[in-house]
């Protein structure tokens, strides 16, 4: 373990420790809500980047995985204990990812984007069809013993797990293979790497985590109904947060999740009440948030293609005499 890694571990343990402590504070519900949101998106964005960082494929499937995870829990919470369901949900997300990956990951990135763009909507319609015609249940009320604090801790544990998995992948053959694929796919295949297979494995991992998050969140939201769980906006948020932070470092997405979540909070608070101008109501928070989402996408493309992390690294390199590359 290098010195940098040691510092990284200490920071991570301290960070998670502090976060885990939060629910014990009294009257900290608002902070908790914010922390919950940040934790949730940290898991989603980090697991997204595990796949998209090295492969450069833009996955818009997060909402589909998230929804599948929630669906599994909603369908089974009366029969099976929650931990089992959590595993099943992750498994279901992984299987879905494997199917999608096998169909599309051999081909160029555009096909993959298009395929995942409508995936959440496709599955929403199929789940709705099953609900309407087979099980004949509209919305399901998922009442479990999962308390708010536990939900938060579960997400935090998932976040810890996603970082651990990411760290292990970086040090594994798979991580090494992904770096080679990212550089030159022809060389990769001539070195004996199964590049489509490696991509599918990573996609499965990201699908697993997104589904697990959905599984936890449905116990918080309680009312399960496909129309409010297969929400494409979740996919878009995740993409933007991950890219904003930077996907070539494990901790990059975190640097996107925190500012973005806080920025949305500011908009929520500042622009929620309709403002009148010339007697017409203008800019509600909802529209403003959508516009912000769009502006961030463009900002990333035009100004910060390597995210906040990229900026930080460039700055660090400029400041450090000698200008050696800093490998974290």
């Amino acid at each position, binding site marked *: 373990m290098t010195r940098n890694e040691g510092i990284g571990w200490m920071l991570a343990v301290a960070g998670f420790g502090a976060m885990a402590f939060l629910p014990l*504070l009294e009257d*900290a519900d*608002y902070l908790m809500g914010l922390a919950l949101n940040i934790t949730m998106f940290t898991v989603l964005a980090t697991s997204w980047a595990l796949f998209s960082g090295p492969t450069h494929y833009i996955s818009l499937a997060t909402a589909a995985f998230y929804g599948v995870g929630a669906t599994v829990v909603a369908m089974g919470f009366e029969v099976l204990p929650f931990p089992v369901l959590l595993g099943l949900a992750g498994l279901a997300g992984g299987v879905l990812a494997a199917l999608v990956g096998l169909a599309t990951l051999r081909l160029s990135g555009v096909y993959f984007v298009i395929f995942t763009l409508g995936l959440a909507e496709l599955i929403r319609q199929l789940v709705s069809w099953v609900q309407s*015609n087979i099980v004949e249940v509209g*919305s399901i009320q998922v009442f479990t013993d999962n308390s708010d604090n536990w939900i938060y801790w579960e997400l935090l544990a998932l976040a810890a797990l996603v970082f651990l998995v990411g760290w292990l992948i970086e040090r594994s053959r798979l991580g090494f293979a992904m770096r080679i694929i990212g550089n030159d796919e022809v060389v990769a295949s001539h070195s004996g790497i199964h590049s489509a297979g490696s991509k599918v494995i990573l996609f499965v991992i990201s699908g697993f985590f997104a589904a697990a998050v959905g599984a936890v969140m449905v116990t918080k939201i309680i009312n399960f109904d496909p129309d*409010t769980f297969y929400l494409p906006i979740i996919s878009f948020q995740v993409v933007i947060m991950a890219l904003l932070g930077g996907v070539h470092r494990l901790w990059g997405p975190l640097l996107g999740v925190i500012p973005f979540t806080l920025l949305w909070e500011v908009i*929520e608070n500042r622009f929620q009440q309709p403002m009148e101008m010339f007697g017409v109501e203008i800019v509600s928070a*909802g529209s403003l948030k959508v516009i912000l989402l769009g502006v961030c996408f463009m900002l990333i493309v035009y100004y910060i293609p390597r995210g906040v992390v990229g900026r930080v690294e460039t700055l660090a390199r400029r400041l450090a005499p000698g200008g050696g590359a800093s490998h974290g």
Partner: protein
Amino acid sequence: MLSRMTGFIKMSLAGAIVFALGLGSAGAAETIKIGAVAPKTGPLAVGASITHWPNIKLWVSQVNGRGGLRMKDGSRRKIQLITYDDQTNPTEHIKATIRLATLDKVDFIVAPYGTGFNVAAAPHFAKYGYPQITSTSITDKIPQLTKRFPGLFFTLGNTTAFVGSVVEILAKLRDQGKIGNRVAIVNVAADFGIELKKASIPIFKKAGFNIVYNKSYPLGTQDLSPVMRGVKASNPDAFVAWSYPPDTIGLTVQAKIQGLDVKAYYSAVATAFPVYRNKFGKSIEGVLGAGGLNLDSPALQTYMADHKRVTGKEADFWASPVVYATLQVLEQAIEAVGSTDRKAVTAYIKSGTFTTVMGTWKFKNQVIPSFWTVGQWQNGKFYGVSSTGMPGEKPVAIKRGW
């Protein structure tokens, strides 16, 4: 020592965030803060913009026009309204509710729009002790929900009663020999549509109807022509659609195009919307739909006029006045208690009697037992034709073509 430490940490964290976000607006001391979270964007925004938001606006402007809510000491406190857009996203909805309770520290919160969001918000209303007087929420799970959440109230009815009334009307028409025995059912594959369909099939069967068509379509289907063609091919005597706003309109479009000639045509949510009439004009004469009102009631007529004047929009002929009535309940309970003591207000709602635009309301096990179930377009107005004990039911007319 530890608790002082945690207290310090908490204070500084909260302080930092409040500072960073520019929160903690200092409201005038003499107001009552009321929060509301509902969709302004997303799939449910259309319904909320017709049924939910205008009524909140109307109520707040009327109460403040009167000088505010009267307190025990005789003073009047105006309402400061704080609204959030949940974007039809339950995660955002919960976040906003918590923000209202903990940061904005509102005195009361208006119940959300839609059944699902009411369920999602219920634990959080309960946690902070807010009464939740729902208006746009229909479910058969009322007994379980009210038992679990003692501050949760229902006013718009339950699924079985809704479905029961429709079957009853059709059975009556059949028994009078006005329509035949063949009924075609479609439903939108979304929570409410599915629940209504599920409840309706056994009741239709029990009433001796022959279900000749029974299919669902996904929410957001743009072209319903294959559906309506299938319906027409099944040659029904009555048509029932457990539908939502956009598809209620889409189905009518196709019924006109395909020339679906049934003497009883029913569609659920949005049939009572003024926009439905505006789009189709006279041809919807005789269409049955969810809701309906006693339009002869003077209180309701005043409400309708005020709604138009203040919000610039027509109220819908079903849930709009119910939303308004729940706000009247809140208003009267606060004034009766004379303070913002949420426990006392909740207790008062449970036992008190309220004068609302929907008539006199008294909750029975947290539920208003009398409500409209079916309405019908007659002479450009949507009258109630069936209810659970509401006054002023009109007789059902036969639909004659489009």
